[in-house]
């Protein structure tokens, strides 16, 4: 194991964590503020990627395509809110899980009817293609640096909105005690819609940004959704800071575990058994972390204030 490999793997872990943060931030907002379990968040990530495929293809420009994809993702999100989610806010969690799980099936199948079942892709934009040389000839793709940068920028923007603006204050209040916020005369429905629209945009943005490095295919959101839930459980429900920290932990643990677990185990067992144990252990590592967090701090590492 060399230092440069370690650095590359830490970058990979960061970049994976940032991607998870973008998805988890929306999920945790919607869950935290609205107490609404939105399993369809993963398919909104998928829709973002598919819309990016279409609009980047149509316009020939990544930036323009991204902007249009975000707008379209927002529109679809609002339509879903109006048609489906709005009627579920008052219902219990089981109803929400069932209805949004139905949406997963519907949208996965719908995507297949519109775009076909075969995986699609978005080319890396020309100005971000190529790679940056790190030390001793190890290259790191420029696009992944851009992804890390974009994620950090979105994180900073979110922090600013949540901590420094009036809407953010209402959000934090809503996450702590929604009925009190409503009693104080805040239009909670409008607040919910803003939160939801924002969450959808974030998921769509994550999907569109992931499209150039990942295969765009039906069901691509399902694995991300599971990881995003791990992130918000680790970080603390309803907390943007928690989502950020949780996402980085999950990203780094998963990536570093996958790359160094075998070498680590080989120090004290034979190569074939290290391989078998390493593969099994590294794929469950993040769930072990989640179990540990739940055991030590059941409310997550950085929970939203006032939430029990």
């Amino acid at each position, binding site marked *: 194991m060399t230092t440069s490999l370690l650095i590359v793997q830490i970058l*990979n872990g960061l970049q994976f964590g940032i991607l998870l943060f973008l998805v988890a931030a929306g999920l945790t907002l919607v869950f935290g503020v609205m107490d609404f379990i939105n399993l369809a968040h993963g398919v909104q990530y998928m829709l973002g990627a598919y819309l990016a495929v279409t609009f980047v293809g149509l316009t020939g420009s990544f930036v323009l395509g991204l902007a249009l994809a975000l707008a379209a993702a927002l529109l679809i999100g609002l339509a879903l809110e109006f048609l489906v989610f709005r009627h579920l806010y008052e219902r219990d969690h089981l109803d929400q899980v069932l209805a949004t799980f139905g949406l997963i099936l519907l949208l996965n199948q719908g995507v297949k009817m519109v775009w076909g079942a075969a995986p699609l892709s978005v080319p890396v934009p020309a100005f971000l293609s190529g790679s940056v040389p790190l030390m001793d000839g190890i290259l790191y793709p420029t696009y992944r640096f851009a992804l890390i940068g974009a994620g950090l920028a979105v994180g900073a923007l979110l922090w600013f909105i949540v901590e420094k603006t009036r809407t953010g204050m209402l959000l934090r209040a809503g996450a702590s005690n929604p009925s009190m916020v409503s009693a104080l005369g805040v239009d909670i429905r409008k607040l919910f819609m803003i939160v939801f629209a924002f969450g959808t945009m974030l998921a769509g943005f994550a999907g569109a940004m992931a499209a150039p490095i*990942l295969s765009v295919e039906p069901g691509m959101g399902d694995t991300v959704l599971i990881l995003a839930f791990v992130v918000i459980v680790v970080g603390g429900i309803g907390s943007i800071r928690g989502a950020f920290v949780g996402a980085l932990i999950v990203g780094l643990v998963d990536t570093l575990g996958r790359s160094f677990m075998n070498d680590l185990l080989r120090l004290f067992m034979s190569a074939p058994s290290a391989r078998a144990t390493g593969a099994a252990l590294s794929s469950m590592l993040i769930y072990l972390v989640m179990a540990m967090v739940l055991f030590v701090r059941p409310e997550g590492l950085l929970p939203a204030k006032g939430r029990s």
Partner: protein
Amino acid sequence: MTLKFTLSLSAGLLALGVAGAQAQEPMKIGVVSVLTGPGAALGQQVRDGFQLAVDKNGGKLGGLAVQITVIDDELKPDVAVGKVRSFVEGGKVDFVVGPVFSNILGAIAKPVLDSGAFLISPNAGPSTMAGKACNQNFFVTSYQNDQVHEVLGKYAQDQGYKRAYIIAPNYQAGKDSLAGFKNYFKGEIVDEVYAPLTSMDFASDIAKIASTKPDVVFAFLPGGLGVNFVKQWSQAGLQGKIPFLSAFTVDESTLPAQQDAAVGLFGGMTWAPNMDNPQTKKFVADYEAAYKIVPGSYAQQAYDAAMLIDSAVKAAGGTGDKDKLRAALKKADFTSLRGKFKFNTNGYPIQDFYLVKVAKRADGKFQTEIAQKVFTDYADPHAKDCALK
């Protein structure tokens, strides 16, 4: 969801009108394929390849009108068994063609074969049914699964590569794949990686490959896994630097997404769309005209399955005499898109295997092209465990 379309309708009506004679029962064929979920791109090729052969034959196979029932196995063995059982029990079925994935084949083989129908697999070729569990009414028009991985192992060995990095998903087929590669490759294995089946980002594996600098990489990463890996491989600047051998990782079902990132990468197969024979030229042109995509081995093998049925039913003079029909199937007296094709005693083919290389065509589409022959008349080793003669 069971789609039914009676192709024979127009042909049948015409025959009735003209001859006024007794209408012959159409031959009943079930096509079992995966049409939902991540495997659907492969399943559609199987369905469409078979359909194309029937269409080009005027809606008939072996002179008989055919009634095709398409069954979506959803890549779920329990679902597949339920649908297939009710289909074969619902009336006399002559042939079941399918499925794509071996785990589905394991589930549907018994109900189909118990019903007396012939089962023709256009893709799945598990070792179990090639050996002890072989059946006289079971035929495979693809290959035995291990063989495709062995092609790459043999090629890597022949090239004199010393150090290989090999990677596959962490499930049974992944383990079989790497074992198949190692059957023929005798050099050092730098690392043997089993990635989770849900992997999206291979950046950490690719960084490891870049730092260990193996002579060759072998990957079995089907479907979306392969799309992710190949794109990230190219983005890391490794395309063309380290030889990349693969099985089911770069093929016509994934190339539309991988595009330029896959050009120059190698796979193993029994056929490629540029195979130099007139039947392949016609098939590829017809398929592209009908379905707007370049056909891969899945479509080709399903097409061959239809041509096999066509030849056997013709030779046996119908489907009435099962023994005659079986003997005719075993002869494999049809013009395969692969050119050479014959059956071993276990109902699996004995055929040539090639190293194929991804290329960009003049029209901008991508396809695999034959690079060199690796095995000649290669029979799978499991046939010796099969009691059939």
